[in-house]
C-alpha cells in the first residue's frame, strides 16, 4: 500500500524531471550497451576463429578497462548532478512532514525505476548493437559474415551486475547526503550570492609548467622508439596542465581583462567578461574534461583510421614496393655448444642453397595452385652504424638508449650485382668505391656528412662514390637517424665489410652479424593461394607457413653438421596475403575499438555539456532578467548569451585541436613504428577527423543550446 504510494510519487517525480532523467537514462543505456558489446566481443569464440580475428579479444580487453573507468566516472557525475538539482525538492518533502526514511524510499524507487529501465534498454540495444558490430567487423576484416544471434547469460549477468552495483553505490552515497541534509539551511541558501572566484596562482603556475613541459616533450621527441614513453609522459602532463589551466588560467585571464578598463567597460564586454568569470568557476572541470575527451576522440579516430586505411600501402611497402608477393630467407641459424671453459654457446649462420630452398617453396606453393613466376636474390646487411672521422663501428641499439652518438646512421649494404637487378640500374663502381643513396626523409647528402675516405673497422678503406637509385626496401625508421643504402662492388666486399664491422664489436653483442640472403618472389596465382591458405590458429600461423617450416626443418635435420650443432630456426616465409590479414585483424580491431571508445567519449561529452547547460540556464535566467530590467535590449541580451555560450563551447574544441596539432609529430613517429610511414594519409585522416568531430560537436551544441535558451527566456 505504502510502497505503491512511493512508487507513484517516484514515477511522477521522474516524469516531472524528465529534462534531467532522460539524458541520465540515455547515457546509462549507452554505457551499458557498449560495455556489454565489448565484453561479448572479447569473449566470442566465433570471432577469434575468423581470419585476423586473433587480435579482437586482447584489443577489446583494453577497451573494457577504459569503458569501465569512464562508466564509473560518468555514473557518479550524473548522479551527483541529479542529486544537486533535486536536493531542494527532497528538502521540501522533509519540510512538508515526510521523514527522511520516507524520502529515502522515494529516492530508492526513483533510482530503481531509472536503473532497471536503463539496464533493460542497455542489454536490449547492446544485443542489437552486437549483431551490427559483428557485421561491421566482418566487413572490416574482409571475411564472410557470421550469422545468427549470440547472447550468453554470463555476459548479460556480468554487465547488469557491474552497472547495478555502480548505481547502488551512487544511491548509498545519496542516502548519506540526504541524512546530512538540513532542510532549513537548504531553503535559506537560495538567496546567498556566489563568491567571486579567486585566482589560484599556484595552480596557474603548475598548469603552465605541466602543459609547457608536455608540449615540449611532444614537440622535441626525437625518435619513434623514444616516442612511446615520451607520448605517455606528454599525455599525462598535458591532461594535468589542461585541468589546471582551465581552473586557474581562465580566471586569471578574465580578471586581467577586467583590470583593463578600456576593454572591460564596453557594452559588448562588460557583462560577458564578468559572467564568464563565474561560469568558469563552476565549469572549468567540465570544460577541461570535454577538452580532454575531445582530444582523445580525435587522436583515437585519426590514428586508427589512418592505420586501417594505410594497410595496402604498408603491405606494398614491405614487399619491395609491390614488386614481390612474398619473401623467403635463405639463411638459417644454428648454435654450437662451446667446449671452452665459459661454456658459451656460439651462434652460427648458414645458407640453404638457392635451388633447394626455392624447390621447397615451390613444393608448398603448388599445393595451393600457385607457382613462382620470377624472383630476385638480395644479399644485404642492415644495421646501425656510427661514424667517427670516417671510421665505422656498430651501435648496440636497445630500448634503454637515450641519445644516439653523433654520426649515427642506419645502413643497408648491398652488392652491386644485386643492386642493379633490384633497381633495374646500370651502376658502375670502380674498385674500392661505394655507391650510396639516402632512403628516408631524414637522410641528407652523405658526402657532406662523411669524409670521402671511410673504413668499416678493417684495413680496407673505401671512397664514397656515385649516388645510387632509391632502394625499394622496407625501412625501419624507429630511430629517426639518416637512413642510407650503400652499394659495394662485390659480394666479397659485403662479406669483408660485415666481418670488419663485427670486429668493432667491443663486447656489446654476444653474437656476430651475417649478411641476409633474401628471395623476393613474384607469384602466379596469388589470388588462389590467398584464398586457400587458411589461418591455422593464432598470430601468423598460416597453413603454408607451417608446411614450409616443416620442410625446412626436415632439410636441416638431414644436414651434416658438427655434432654439437643444433639448427634452431627455420627460414622466414613472409607472404603479402598473410601480412595483409594480420594487419586487417589488428588495425581493424583497433579501428573498431576507436569507434566504440569514441562513442563513449561522445556520450560523456554530450552529457557534461547538457547538464552544464541546464544548471547554467537556471543560474543565468535571473541574471538576464535583471539585465533587461536595467535596460539591456532583448537583442543585446541574446547577443551576450550567444557570445558566452560560443566561447564556453568552443574553448574545449579549440583546446583539443591545439593539443592535436602539438601531438601530431609525436603520433606520426608512433605510427612509423607500426610500419605506417605515410604522412599524407595521416594528415588527411587527422584533418577529416577534426572536421567530423567539430561537426558532431556542433550538433550536440545546437541540441543542448536549445534547452538553455528555453530556460533562460
Amino acid at each position, binding site marked *: 500500500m505504502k510502497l505503491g504510494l512511493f512508487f507513484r510519487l517516484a514515477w511522477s517525480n521522474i516524469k516531472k524531471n524528465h529534462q534531467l532523467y532522460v539524458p541520465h537514462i540515455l547515457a546509462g543505456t549507452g554505457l551499458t550497451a557498449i560495455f556489454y558489446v565489448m565484453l561479448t566481443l572479447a569473449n566470442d569464440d566465433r570471432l577469434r576463429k575468423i581470419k585476423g580475428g586473433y587480435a579482437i579479444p586482447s584489443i577489446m580487453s583494453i577497451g573494457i578497462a577504459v569503458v569501465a573507468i569512464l562508466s564509473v566516472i560518468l555514473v557518479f557525475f550524473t548522479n551527483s548532478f541529479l542529486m544537486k538539482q533535486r536536493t531542494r525538492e527532497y528538502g521540501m518533502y522533509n519540510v512538508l512532514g515526510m521523514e527522511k526514511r520516507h524520502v529515502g524510499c522515494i529516492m530508492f524507487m526513483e533510482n530503481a525505476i531509472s536503473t532497471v529501465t536503463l539496464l533493460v534498454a542497455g542489454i536490449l540495444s547492446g544485443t542489437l548493437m552486437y549483431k551490427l558490430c559483428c557485421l561491421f567487423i566482418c566487413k572490416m576484416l574482409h571475411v564472410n559474415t557470421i550469422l545468427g544471434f549470440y547472447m550468453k547469460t554470463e555476459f548479460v549477468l556480468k554487465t547488469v551486475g557491474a552497472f547495478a552495483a555502480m548505481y547502488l553505490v551512487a544511491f548509498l552515497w545519496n542516502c548519506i547526503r540526504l541524512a546530512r541534509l538540513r532542510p532549513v539551511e537548504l531553503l535559506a541558501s537560495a538567496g546567498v550570492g556566489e563568491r567571486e572566484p579567486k585566482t589560484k596562482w599556484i595552480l596557474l603556475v603548475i598548469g603552465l609548467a605541466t602543459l609547457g613541459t608536455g608540449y615540449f616533450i611532444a614537440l622535441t621527441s626525437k625518435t619513434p622508439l623514444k616516442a612511446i614513453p615520451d607520448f605517455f609522459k606528454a599525455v599525462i602532463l598535458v591532461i594535468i596542465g589542461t585541468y589546471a589551466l582551465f581552473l586557474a588560467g581562465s580566471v586569471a585571464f578574465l580578471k586581467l581583462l577586467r583590470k583593463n*578598463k578600456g576593454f572591460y567597460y564596453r557594452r559588448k564586454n562588460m557583462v560577458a567578461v564578468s559572467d564568464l568569470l563565474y561560469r568558469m568557476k563552476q565549469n572549468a572541470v567540465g570544460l577541461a574534461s570535454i577538452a580532454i575527451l575531445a582530444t582523445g576522440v580525435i587522436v583515437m579516430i585519426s590514428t586508427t583510421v589512418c592505420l586501417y586505411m594505410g594497410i595496402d600501402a604498408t603491405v606494398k611497402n614491405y614487399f619491395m614496393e609491390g614488386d614481390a608477393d612474398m619473401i623467403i630467407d635463405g639463411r638459417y641459424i644454428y648454435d654450437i655448444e662451446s667446449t671452452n671453459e665459459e661454456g658459451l654457446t656460439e651462434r652460427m649462420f648458414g645458407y640453404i642453397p638457392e635451388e633447394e630452398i626455392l624447390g621447397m617453396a615451390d613444393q608448398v606453393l603448388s599445393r595451393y595452385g600457385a607457382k613462382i613466376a620470377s624472383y630476385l636474390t638480395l644479399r644485404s646487411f642492415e644495421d646501425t652504424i656510427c661514424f667517427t672521422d670516417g671510421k665505422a663501428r656498430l651501435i648496440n641499439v636497445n630500448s634503454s638508449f637515450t641519445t644516439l652518438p653523433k654520426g649515427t646512421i642506419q645502413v643497408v649494404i648491398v652488392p652491386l650485382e644485386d643492386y642493379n637487378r633490384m633497381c633495374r640500374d646500370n651502376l658502375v663502381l670502380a674498385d674500392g668505391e661505394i655507391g650510396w643513396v639516402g632512403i628516408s626523409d631524414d637522410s641528407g647528402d652523405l658526402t657532406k656528412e662523411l669524409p670521402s675516405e671511410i673504413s668499416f673497422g678493417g684495413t680496407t678503406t673505401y671512397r664514397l662514390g656515385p649516388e645510387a637509385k632509391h632502394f625499394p626496401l622496407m625501412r625501419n625508421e624507429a630511430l629517426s637517424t639518416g637512413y642510407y643504402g650503400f652499394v659495394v662492388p662485390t659480394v666479397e666486399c659485403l662479406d669483408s665489410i660485415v666481418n670488419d664491422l663485427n670486429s668493432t664489436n667491443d663486447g656489446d653483442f654476444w653474437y656476430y652479424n651475417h649478411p641476409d640472403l633474401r628471395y623476393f618472389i613474384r607469384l602466379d596465382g596469388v589470388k588462389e593461394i590467398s584464398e586457400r591458405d587458411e589461418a591455422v590458429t593464432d598470430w601468423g600461423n598460416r597453413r603454408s607457413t607451417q608446411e614450409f617450416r616443416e620442410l625446412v626443418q626436415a632439410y636441416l635435420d638431414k644436414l651434416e653438421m658438427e655434432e654439437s650443432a643444433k639448427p634452431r630456426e627455420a627460414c622466414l616465409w613472409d607472404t603479402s596475403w598473410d601480412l595483409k590479414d594480420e594487419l586487417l585483424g589488428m588495425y581493424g580491431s583497433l579501428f573498431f575499438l576507436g569507434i566504440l571508445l569514441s562513442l563513449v567519449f561522445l556520450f560523456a561529452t554530450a552529457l557534461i555539456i547538457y547538464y552544464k547547460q541546464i544548471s547554467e540556464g537556471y543560474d543565468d535566467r535571473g541574471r538576464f532578467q535583471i539585465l533587461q530590467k536595467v*535596460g539591456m535590449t532583448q537583442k543585446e541580451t541574446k547577443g551576450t548569451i550567444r557570445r558566452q555560450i560560443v566561447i564556453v563551447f568552443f574553448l574545449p574544441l579549440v583546446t583539443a585541436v591545439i593539443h592535436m596539432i602539438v601531438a601530431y609529430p609525436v603520433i606520426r613517429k608512433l605510427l612509423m613504428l607500426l610500419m605506417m610511414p605515410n604522412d599524407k594519409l595521416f594528415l588527411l585522416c587527422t584533418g577529416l577527423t577534426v572536421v567530423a568531430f567539430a561537426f558532431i560537436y556542433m550538433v550536440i551544441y545546437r541540441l543542448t543550446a536549445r534547452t538553455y535558451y528555453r530556460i533562460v527566456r
Partner: protein
Amino acid sequence: MSILEVSNLQKVYTTRFGGNKVQALSNVTFTVEKGEYVAIMGESGSGKTTLLNILAALDRPTSGKVLLEGKELSGIKESEMATFRRENLGFVFQEFNLLDTFSIRDNILLPLVLNGAKPSELEGKLQPIAERLGIADLLAKYPYEVSGGQKQRTAVARALITDPKLILADEPTGALDSKSTDDLLRVFRDINSQGQTILMVTHSTKAASHASRVLFIRDGEVFHQIYRGDSTNEQLYQKISDTLTLLTTGGEKR
C-alpha cells in the same frame, strides 16, 4: 512644464482563451511636473503595477497616451524602446535587482556602459553620486557583502548615473528595515531637492509621506490626490492615513 503627461490611460487584460476581460486601468489621467516627487498609492490589485509598467514602457496601454517630455511612448519602435528607457528613465526596484557577478562599482556603471559611454568618463560620473549616496567606500565590494540599505542605495546610484528625466521607483522600501527605509527616503528627498523628478509606487504610508504629492488609485482610476503644500511629513502622514481609511471604508469620490 510637465515632464510626464498621462491621459485617459486604459488597460484591459484578456485571459488566455479570450473569454474574460479584466480591466486593470479604466481611466487614469495625471501629470507630473519637472522636479516633482510623486507617490502613487493603492492597494494590491488597484492597478499600480500596471500603471508603472506602462510608464516604464515595459507594457503598452489599450488606449490613452503617455507623454514623456512631450514625446509619446507608444510612438517609439520596439527596437528603440530599451535604448529610450535606458536614456530617459531610471529604475529602483523593491528587490534591488543588483547583479551578484558585478561589484558595487560595476553595478552602478552598467547603464552608462550600456549607453556606450567612454571608459575614461565613467569614474568622473561615478564618484560624486557614490559620495552623495554614502557608498563611496563600498565600491569594490560585492552585493552579497553589503546590507540591504546599501544595496538599495547602490540601485539608486545606478538609476541616477544616466541623469534620467524621471526616476521610477517600485516599492523601493519594501525589502528594507525601518532604519534603512528612513535613510533611503532621506536620499530620495535629497536628490529630489536637487531637481530630480521622482515617481514612486508604494503602499507604505511612511514612504508616501515624504513625497510632494500623493496620488491614490482605486479600481484602475485616480481616486484622489493630496498636495503636500506646507505640511510637514507628519501632517502629510496623517492626511494620507485618513484618505486610506476613507478608501478602504468605501467613501465617495470627492
